[in-house]
Structure formats: C-alpha cells, structure tokens
C-alpha cells in the first residue's frame, strides 16, 4: 500500500501542475484514447496514480470532468475518451495526473500518449503531450512554431489541429515557406478561448499545391500566434482517406522564455 505523502497535499497537486493538453475526438467512427505511461508518474512499483480529465468540446464548451480509477507502475492505464464521456464530441482534453508519490518527482516530465483510431482502420496515430509542473512552461508549444516538410500534393493534404487552452482568444497567422525561401501568408485567424479547431491548410492558403509543385509539394508551415498555442499536424491521403502522418510542430528555440 502506498504511503500518503506527508509533504504534498493532493488537492494542491492539481493546482501545481499545468495539465497536458490533447486533441480529443469521438465522432464519425474516429476515436481517441489516452495511454498513461505508468513509470512517468511514479518510480515506486507499488505507487498508484490517478488522472483528472476535463473535456472542452463543442457540446460543452465550459468543460466536463472525469476522474480515473487508480493506475499502478506496471499496469496500463488506458482511457477511451468516448467511453468515459459518452456521445459524440470533438475538442480537447486537459489531463492532470497525480500521485501520492509525487513529492519524489520523476526526473522527466510526465508524458501522456494519445492514440487516435478509426473503426475502418484508416486512421492509426500516436501523438504525445506533456504535463508540466512549476510555473514557467505552460504548454507544448511556442508563439512561433514550424513544421518543416509540410506536404501539399494532389494525393497528400496537410491538416492542422490548433488548441487554445487559455481563457483568452488567440490570434494567429499561418505562412508557407518554400524550400527556395519564398513565403506567403494566410489571413489572420482567431481561436476562441478554451477551444479546438481542425483546419485544412489549403483552405487558408488557396493555391498552395500549385505554389509548392516545383518543390515536389514540400515546404514549411510557419505559425505565429499571440499565445503559446498547441498545434498538431496531420497528413491525409485524400485518395484512400488514410491518415498516417501526425506529430506536434517544433517551436523556435531562441524565443524569450
């Protein structure tokens, strides 16, 4: 049995940790699942941990919460979001994992991996998100982010998932930079507070495919935003509907922290 920490107040832990933020979907046969990396939360093999989820979605913009049963070091804790929240939704989920053992904080930041899959097998994605502690780093993102290798061809189309976990609206712009150094910018966009949106990059920058055609459809996507927005990209094969490429963008190192 894990000894309750005499140092850490469990209720305080929720406040100390900035939650991991992940895209959440359960709609049209596409599902999402959180996979908790047990050892990231406690090095004590008998140490339990627990996750607190808040889902912000189109159906409940102010958030709905769910608390998991306890997981343990060597046992998986997988949370199928569709099962715990029920119904259909798309939005984002904030995840805070707590453990009575957290006064012995792990050396690495806590990683939470999400996988996205579809009933028909077209989608099989695994993407990371990170729970930070302390007060400096709030999200897995920066005010300037880049995806080197954005691809826009007749077969492959770039998609972008943007998440605003803040209480303020975010303003941002997308730019495409070709390998030759030419650049074109899309119109300014807004993302309301506590919301998520999926974008077809070509809708924001019409003619992208033709513009990148001399470079085999490959370029870079640059995002400049008023806040450290959380962004993930996806590459869809529009002929087959399969989505196999997805990851977070890289943020510029060199920013003032």
């Amino acid at each position, binding site marked *: 049995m894990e000894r309750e920490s005499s140092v850490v107040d469990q209720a305080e832990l929720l406040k100390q940790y900035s939650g991991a933020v992940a895209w959440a979907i359960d709609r049209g046969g596409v599902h999402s699942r959180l*996979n908790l*990396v*047990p*050892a*990231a939360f406690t090095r004590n093999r008998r140490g339990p941990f627990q996750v607190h989820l808040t889902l912000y979605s189109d159906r409940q913009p102010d958030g709905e919460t769910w608390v998991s049963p306890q997981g*343990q070091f*060597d*046992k*998986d804790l*997988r949370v199928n979001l569709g099962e715990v929240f029920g119904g259909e939704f798309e939005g984002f989920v904030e995840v805070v994992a707590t453990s009575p053992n957290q006064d012995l*904080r*792990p*050396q*690495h*930041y806590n990683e939470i*991996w999400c*996988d996205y899959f579809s009933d028909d*097998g077209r989608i*099989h*994605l*695994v*993407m*990371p998100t990170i729970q*930070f*502690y*302390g007060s*400096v*780093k709030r999200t897995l993102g920066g005010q*300037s982010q*880049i*995806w*080197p*290798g954005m*691809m826009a061809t007749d077969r*492959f189309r770039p998609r972008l998932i943007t998440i605003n976990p803040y209480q303020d609206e975010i303003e941002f712009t997308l*730019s495409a*930079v070709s*390998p*030759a*150094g030419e*650049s074109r910018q899309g119109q300014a966009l807004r993302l309301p507070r506590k919301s998520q949106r999926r974008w077809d990059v070509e809708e924001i920058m019409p003619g992208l495919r033709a513009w990148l055609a001399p470079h085999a459809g*490959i*370029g*870079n996507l*640059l995002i*400049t935003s008023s806040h450290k927005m959380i962004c993930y*990209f996806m*590459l869809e*094969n529009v002929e*087959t509907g*399969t989505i*196999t*490429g*997805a*990851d977070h963008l*890289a943020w*510029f*190192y*060199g920013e003032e*922290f």
Partner: protein
Amino acid sequence: MMDDLPKDAPRKICLCMSVTDEEIAACYHAGHRELSEIREITRACTRCFGCEADLTSFYTNVLAAGKYKAPSRNLRTLLMRRMRRQSMYRIAQAAYHRHVRWRVAPLVFASVIVERPDLHSRVIIANVNREPAGDEFKEIQLEVQLIDGGGSLVYSKVYDVPKNGTLMLEGAQMIGGRGDGQPFIGTIIVKGKRRYTGSLRPYTHYYNDVSVASTHDQWTPDVTRHHGFCTMVRIPPTGPFVHISVSNIEPSPYRSRAVLTNHRGKQQEVDLHVAPYGTVLTSAGELFGDVDGFLDRQLGTLRFDNWSHRAMYYFLAHDLERNTWNVNHL
C-alpha cells in the same frame, strides 16, 4: 551513470543548455539568490524544462541548505570567480553565451533513417526566420553524417543552407548503392554552429506511394531526448505491425532490458544489445516470440529499462493490408 563520475567532477543538471551544478552554484554564490534569476543568467532549464525537478531540488536541498561543495576549478571557473569578485558575473555570463559557448558546442540533431523497398526516408531542415524579411537567422553551414546499423560512417558532407532556405536529404541518395535492395537502417547526425536552434530541428518523412509520416528528430548525441527509460504505449496484438528502432548514440555498447507488459500487468523480459553508434530495427515479435498469445488480444506496453544510457527510439507501425506506415518518435 552520473554516480560513476569522479566525486569532484561537475554534474550536468540541464542537459539541453549544458549547465553544470558548478555554474549554478557559482551564480548563486555571486549573489543571485532567486531561482528565476539563476535560470535567466545561466540559461539552465530554459529549453525543454525536463530538468526542472532536478534544478529545483539542487537549489532547495543543496544550495539553499548550504551543502554545496565546489569541485576542482578549471580556467573558466577561475575567470568567472574573478568576475564574481568584481560584481561582473552577469556580464561575463552573457558574453560567454553570446560569443563562446555556441562555437565550442555545436547544435547537434539526430534522426533514424530507414530505406527498404516499401519505405523511404527524407530529412527536411529549415533555416527560416520568424518574419520573412527578418534577419534573426542567417546562412548556416551544416555538417551531415550518416551512420549505418553497425555504427560505421557511410556518408559525410557539409551543406551551406541559405537564409530562409530548406535542406532536403533523401535517404536513398545518401546511402547510394549501399543497400542494393537490402533494408538499410541507420542514424543521421546534423551539426551546425549557431546560438539558437531557431527552426533547425529536422523533421523526417517516412514515405512510400500511399503514405507519408512526418516526425521530428530525437535531438542530439550530446543532448539526447531520452537518456534512459522509454516506453511504447501501444503494441497492438494484431495489425498494424509495429517495428521499433533503437539507436545507440554513445561510443559504448548499449544494453537494456526490454519489458513487454500486457493489460493484466504480466511481463516478459529480454535483453537488447546495440553496438556503439549502431541502430537496430526490431519488433515485439522478434524480441519476445509469441506476442499475440501473451497480449491476449489487448494492447500492450513495451519499455526499455536502461535509466542511464543515451539512446534514440522510434516506432514504425506498418499496416500490412494497406502498406501504409505511421512513424513517430517515442
């Protein structure tokens, strides 16, 4: 690993910015008693924030508790000590970061390269500014090396990447005829000298006719993403077939216990060895034999249990029916 260091050797607390306990202590003893101030001056814990717990613990339990004992001093420490006495520590640190450190410690990035008949790799490195007309990042010279699975250098070239330019490197081009139709697995290492990373982190396409996966580097041989312990949380019992690549980015042999856990918490263990600077491409089936029976038609978790050896891990999930590949870092 750190426990093996001589007792008076400085210990790196922030791996990303390469800041030692000695530098942090020097800053503290120069009169900068706030943790935020120490971070700002030394640059410790300003990049990935993975060392925040270590830094906080060192600050609270060692420095503030007055338990720090300085190790032997080198020329730089002596110079900084002199600066401390003359109240010029902050200026000296700023000058060191601006003019010296990035020259002696280049930026290094690494990714895995796979070439086989049904999967190819293409590395993309952007050298762009945040504003198109900006002058933040200028032309840069990048040294590219490709190391094969056995740890031998197979390709080496220096590229000049112009301001706002992008370097694209095809795996097939780099290995030339070396693969001869045989699968190739290796590690690409990219080095460049600049103060800030900017947009330089390489992303790699793992592609064939029907799918393109895109994922980022796993940082550097000097400052790797995972210096120990790594998990793959989704080992499916049936399709897609998951391959795992493990790259050893140290000059000593890599040995780790690989542990497969099923949904009931039961485990299977096996030892994995990788040659110095070598890379292996393996799968749960190759490592553990009958995985399907053990996983009992549920997802499993694969863990590499070496807490100290620096290595680079990717997974490559192959949908055999569609011939699509999803590749991502661990």
